[in-house]
């Protein structure tokens, strides 16, 4: 359990309209068992003691499942360890004397609110466009009465593992959100309950995604940084479903007034 002395270059930005800049902080006596966010907590307590405003950053569960936390650490969203969110990155992954550069997610659709906190409501718009199933009200039917092959259930589960953190957008050189959208589409399109609205959902969610984000040119950088290991196979599936929706199953796509949906 050794201690590290680190230099942090952290992005500080007072508000959305502030241009922002990097500030350098010395983080000394950092215990290697600390998580990255606990290290920032310690730095913040020291800042408060000096009457300086602490670094703002998003966090919630601190165990890698809620999707709240996210910062670009040394040029990689969520930092150097694969399949690991920022909150689960521990300081033993760094060496004594390291300089760590910390920056928020960068995307036009994720405006910076303050310091490392960005507004990810564009993801909510994509979900609102079709990331749900329409279910009848009244008494709920027995969940086990719908038969689903295990391989399909497993695949849908893999897609559902997406926590919506936005690392994919942050990593993508094009600022595209395909991995997120593909995961959210796939997890419903694979299941029987998702079939009635499958084509409308695909078109609506893809079209909404394209209103905010860039386009996918298959770098696969998203898959490499995704803390839940979502595969780009889902992007291929989304493309397949979109092609089918536009060519084969056009009549099943319900026309949605996009200006209202985007509202």
């Amino acid at each position, binding site marked *: 359990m050794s201690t590290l002395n680190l230099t942090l270059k952290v992005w500080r930005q007072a508000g959305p309209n502030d241009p922002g800049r990097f500030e350098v902080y010395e983080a000394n006596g950092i215990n290697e068992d600390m998580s990255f966010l606990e290290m920032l907590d310690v730095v913040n307590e020291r800042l408060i003691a000096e009457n300086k405003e602490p670094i703002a950053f998003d966090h919630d569960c601190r165990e890698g499942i809620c999707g709240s936390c996210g910062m670009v650490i*040394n040029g990689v969203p969520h930092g150097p360890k694969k399949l690991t969110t920022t909150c689960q990155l521990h300081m033993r992954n760094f060496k004594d004397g390291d300089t760590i550069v910390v920056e928020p997610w960068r995307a036009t659709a994720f405006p910076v609110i303050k310091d490392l906190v960005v507004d990810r409501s564009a993801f909510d718009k994509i979900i609102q466009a079709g990331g749900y199933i329409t279910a009848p009200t009244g008494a709920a039917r027995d969940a086990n009465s719908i038969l689903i092959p295990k391989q399909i259930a497993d695949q849908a589960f893999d897609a559902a593992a997406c926590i919506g953190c936005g690392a994919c957008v942050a990593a993508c050189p094009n600022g595209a959100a395909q991995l997120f959208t593909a995961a959210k589409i796939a997890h419903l399109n694979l299941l029987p309950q998702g079939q009635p609205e499958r084509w409308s959902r695909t078109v609506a969610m893809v079209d909404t995604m394209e209103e905010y984000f860039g386009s996918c040119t298959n770098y696969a950088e998203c898959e490499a940084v995704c803390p839940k290991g979502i595969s780009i196979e889902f992007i291929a599936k*989304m493309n397949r479903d979109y092609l089918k929706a536009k060519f084969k199953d056009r009549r099943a796509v319900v026309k949605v007034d996009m200006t209202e949906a985007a509202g």
Partner: protein
Amino acid sequence: MLSGTRARGVQPLRQRRVRPRIWIPDFYGSAVGKKAVMAVTGIVLLGFVLVHMLGNLHLYEGAEKMNWYGEYLREIGEPILPRTGLLWIVRSVLILAFALHIHAAYSLTVMNRQSRKTKYQGGRDYIAANYAARTMRWSGVIVGLFVIYHLMDLTWGMGGADFTKGEPYQNVVASLSRWPIAGVYIVANLLLGMHIYHGAWSLFQSLGWSHPRFNHWRRVFAAAFAAIIVIGNVSFPIAVLTGIVE
């Protein structure tokens, strides 16, 4: 402390048209649609580049065979089609493929630039995005410009070398004997190879052709295709410079 609870301030970067359109332009209007079109036009261009390289191997069979091949391309399709009829159909398809490929690439580039208005200030450390993938626009533009020069050089006879219509063998030797031009051909084909290395794999994803059973082979296919084209095309200037073909 989810940011979604504060969310209100994000406006879409671009609005989708509400007026219904005919389904094909409507499909092309989306980024996914454009990528699918780039994939299909890419396949057409890949097919052309392969056939072109294979056909040009006639160079190694000597002047007579090579010049016969050039004439053959103009006669093929007779008598159903007039002379150069089929050739012009193929050329039209290629021109259309190039035009769509380039237009789609241009629109998507504009879309992608807008999606990250503030660049990363602290540098990026890419894990999976390889050099070939990140330079597609550059390799594409340079190859595109090279294609125009190549047409000037060996089809229209405006490339600065001795040119006789109907004698492709001699034209090739005359042009590629100039080592700076040979260098240009080699560099352009290396860039084409990089472009194919990413493009021939990327087209599978864009068209949704993905299955664990063959996914690994997609990369093998792309690498092999790129290698074959590069080796074949680069062999010509080298053969001329070293005197193997004269």
